[in-house]
């Protein structure tokens, strides 16, 4: 059986007949070809289940291509709120002739397959439950023009699946209307298609699989949003004024969504914008503009992915040494060039921590949820301006581009922190200032902005060689003192960055450390370990770098610590090993997951048990 949570239940409509049914716990995979318009249909299916009150997540596993290559969309519905990707597929909706055979072969026995009749998939294996649907015939019956039939075939499977899973069709209708809220004609046609599928299934398919969606109340008041949109909102509410960027998957949608939000909510009654968003010629220019804008006082940011981060290395070092704020969203993905740029990873942790030449270390934040994409936006800007340094928000493709359920985001509860900036009035009182002097003992100097109307406001911004007053200097003592002070800022930042989240009773000798989207698999895995293996663990979720005291304490308190992450080399584990007492480093063990798909709980559990020697 493809599921881990099987409950014998009385089947509705079949009194007296007992059989195994699985309610509100399944993963559905839709296999299509990209460019076929399946995204709308998948969103409708996802929303229909969500509207039934069942916790969901939706993950798009797509190729780096515009049309014609295979793509998969995975919906997980889970009554207990587990929303990590599930390794096993319970219901396959096979629409892509090219991958259908393989898709079917990888299923676990007992899974259900909904397929396009001509594919004749029921010949591939005999341990699955098959439903054949004549999509072309149904599409023609809906009366769509020939060129639209390919598109509406996708909506037909939504109707079929809804009927088989017993999703209230009213919810499908509601979801279709929301999806096509601005296109009445499209809504009507798609609704007819969904209905045709639903009616066909009711009349022709005999339910043989155990999977059902039943109403719950676990999604009331919740929103569905992707991490990039959440980040865009967060940045807008964090008072961001300048965004410069270069398109790169999977970060482009962050800025594109932000453009929409900013146009709607950040243009004054006089029609003038309180922001500037500029598409740069490359990532080198994007970060250069961020730094120029931040130097001149804007709350500025960019969004990129690993290859962009590499290109931003030189400028990041300059910003670190000149001490200029910058917010950089890294929507992490698999490595260089072509192949898997549309697949998720946590692969930039180590390179970003020390990005650039010379001695550097950078503040990083690790959001695990759309909610944290929203809240960490302000954290990032505040930290960047408080410490006059680049701050990286390490999201990833899974978080950034996939749909997540969340409570509505809280309105920011703290005022915007612009850091230490001297105004004309301040300079009139002080008479002058020394740009790089540690006046307050926290390592952070006071800066002025170009355009400040005072004869003593100006300073000369340059890289490595300057004294406290910002004057040119190649003196060894000036350089050394400056480097120590910049490091002091990093130390001070430890008590300003978001603190880690601790889960577990604190009694176990086994710890798990995770961060970002790996969190969702870890949470589920810990429950699996507890229920299936009677192994209790403590869990620390790291939210930021530099690490805070709690991280060191956690490692001190546990005999062995599994660091779970989505890269090959255990990058977070390496970063921790650089920071903790040498005698503690053997305690760290890596559970690494590196195939481009979002990490799943079962893999973590299996790897954990293997490493425990059980």
């Amino acid at each position, binding site marked *: 059986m493809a599921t881990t949570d099987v409950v014998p239940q009385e089947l509705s409509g079949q009194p007296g007949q007992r059989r195994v049914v699985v309610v509100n716990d399944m993963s559905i995979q839709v296999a299509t070809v990209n460019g076929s318009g399946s995204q709308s249909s998948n969103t409708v299916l996802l929303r229909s289940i969500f509207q039934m009150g069942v916790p969901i997540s939706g993950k798009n596993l797509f190729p780096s291509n515009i049309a014609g290559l295979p793509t998969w969309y995975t919906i997980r519905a889970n009554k207990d709120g587990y929303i990590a990707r599930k390794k096993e597929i319970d219901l396959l909706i096979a629409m892509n002739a090219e991958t259908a055979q393989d898709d079917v072969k990888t299923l676990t026995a007992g899974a259900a397959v909904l397929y396009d009749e001509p594919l004749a998939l029921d010949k591939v294996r005999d341990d699955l439950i098959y439903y054949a649907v004549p999509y072309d015939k149904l599409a023609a019956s809906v009366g769509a023009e020939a060129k639209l039939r390919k598109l509406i075939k996708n909506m037909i499977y939504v109707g079929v699946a809804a009927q088989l899973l017993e999703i209230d069709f009213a919810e499908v209708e509601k979801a279709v209307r929301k999806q096509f809220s601005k296109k009445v004609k499209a809504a009507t046609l798609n609704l007819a298609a969904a209905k045709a599928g639903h009616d066909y299934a009711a009349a022709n398919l005999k339910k043989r699989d155990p999977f059902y969606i039943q109403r719950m109340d676990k999604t009331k008041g919740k929103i569905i949003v992707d991490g990039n949109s959440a980040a865009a909102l967060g940045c807008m509410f964090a008072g961001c004024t300048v965004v410069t960027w270069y398109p790169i998957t999977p970060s482009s949608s962050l800025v594109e969504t932000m453009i929409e939000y900013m146009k709607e909510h950040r243009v004054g009654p006089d029609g003038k914008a309180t*922001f500037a968003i500029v598409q740069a010629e490359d990532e080198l*220019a994007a970060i250069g503009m961020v730094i120029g804008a931040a130097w001149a006082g*804007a709350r500025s940011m960019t969004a990129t992915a690993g290859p962009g981060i590499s290109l931003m290395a030189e400028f990041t070092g300059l910003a670190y040494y000149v001490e200029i704020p910058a917010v950089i969203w890294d929507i992490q993905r698999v490595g260089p060039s072509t192949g898997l740029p549309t697949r998720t990873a946590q692969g930039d942790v180590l390179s970003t921590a020390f990005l650039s030449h010379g001695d550097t270390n950078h503040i990083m934040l690790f959001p695990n949820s759309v909610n944290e994409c929203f809240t960490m936006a302000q954290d990032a800007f505040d930290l960047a301006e408080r410490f006059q340094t680049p701050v990286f928000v390490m999201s990833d493709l899974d978080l950034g581009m996939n749909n997540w359920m969340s409570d509505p985001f809280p309105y920011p509860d703290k005022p915007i922190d612009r850091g230490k900036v001297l105004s004309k009035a301040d300079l009139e009182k002080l008479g002058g200032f020394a740009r790089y002097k540690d006046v307050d003992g926290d390592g952070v100097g006071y800066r002025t902005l170009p355009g400040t109307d005072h004869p003593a406001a*100006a300073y000369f911004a340059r890289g490595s060689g300057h004294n406290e007053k910002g004057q040119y200097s190649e003196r060894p003592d000036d350089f050394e003192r400056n480097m120590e002070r910049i490091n002091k800022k990093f130390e001070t930042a430890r008590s300003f960055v978001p603190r880690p989240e601790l889960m577990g009773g604190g009694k176990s000798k086994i710890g798990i450390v995770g961060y970002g989207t790996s969190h969702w698999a870890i949470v589920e895995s810990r429950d699996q370990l507890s229920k299936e293996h009677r192994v209790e663990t403590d869990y620390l979720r790291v939210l930021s770098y530099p690490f805070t005291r709690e991280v060191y304490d956690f490692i001190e308190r546990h005999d062995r610590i599994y660091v779970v992450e989505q890269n090959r080399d255990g990058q977070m584990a390496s970063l921790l090993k650089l920071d903790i007492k040498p005698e503690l480093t053997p305690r760290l063990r890596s559970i690494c997951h590196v195939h481009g798909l979002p990490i799943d709980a079962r893999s973590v559990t299996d790897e954990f048990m293997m490493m425990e020697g059980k």
Partner: protein
Amino acid sequence: MGNTPTNAPIAAPTPVPTPTPTPKTNRIGLQVIDYRGGKTTLCAGCGHNAISERIIDAMYEMGVKPERVAKFSGIGCSSKSPAYFMNRSHSFNSVHGRMPSVATGAMLANKNLIALGVTGDGDTVSIGAGQFVHLMRRNLPIIYIIEDNGVYGLTKGQFSATADLGSTLKSGVVNDLPPVDTCAMAIQLGATFVGRSFSGDKRQLHTMLKAAIAHNGTVMLDVVSPCVTFNDHEGSTKSYKYMQAHEEPLHEVSFVPAFEEITVDYDPGTTFEVTMHDGSSLRLRKLEREYDPTDKIQAVSRLMESHAKGEVLTGVFYINAKAPSFIDMLNVTDEPLATLPESVTRPSREVLAKCMEELQ
């Protein structure tokens, strides 16, 4: 020491107090000293120092408040020079070839700044070619000065991409690649004030800089600025001697700022007048009767012709005083984005509630 008598008694007591002479000031009450910078560390005789002097004079005469100016540079000898003028202006010595992006960002943050970029031929045409191209396309309000000497000075005399075909290094190495004409590039790409001058042509450069200050958009000035240490020898086409022999002014440039009353008339038959964005008047007395500096095709064609003739054409090749700048197109608030208060940059609770509702 000019006319100062060297045998004059030092600090001779004067029995009758004479009134202290009022120092000369410009229209905003500043002295030329208020526009000076640190002591130059460039070689004696370097063309870049002369350009710094012309910048000081032009800014002083135009009465530009130093605090409004932001200086930008990349890497190289030229990029060091912003330290040698206008100490009361903020300055950013950025990374090699990427000053345009830093300047662009700063102008996004504060559109009231007067951006002055000083760069070199290596910084612009080789490592910075990409950013140069896009700066020109955007027509960002900036005065972008290339201190063009045909060599990498700070790394001791390698050819740059503006070195002429057949010119030689001190060591005798011959350049066998064609040069990039930054002016032709800038015109094609969208800069709206494009000219070339020579660090040794005090009057022309000074006048062009004053006009540049009055322009709203990208001013691209390629200023041939001989490198006395690595490229002032026989065989160089960027030497003082070569320039004195080959400089070919396209017209005589004069400029009447908006704040001065126009007293001198001109003959439209012999002079081309351009009314600048701020009402100033740029006058180009025609040395070549047919030349029209608002015609891109003619400008590029005349530049190509000058290369064929082996002359170094100088003057304002192209100008469009009416094109909207990049900042105009962004339509941002009058107050700089940099200093907008939280009340303006953070939308209300109601806006967040609406956004959340849309996602439900």
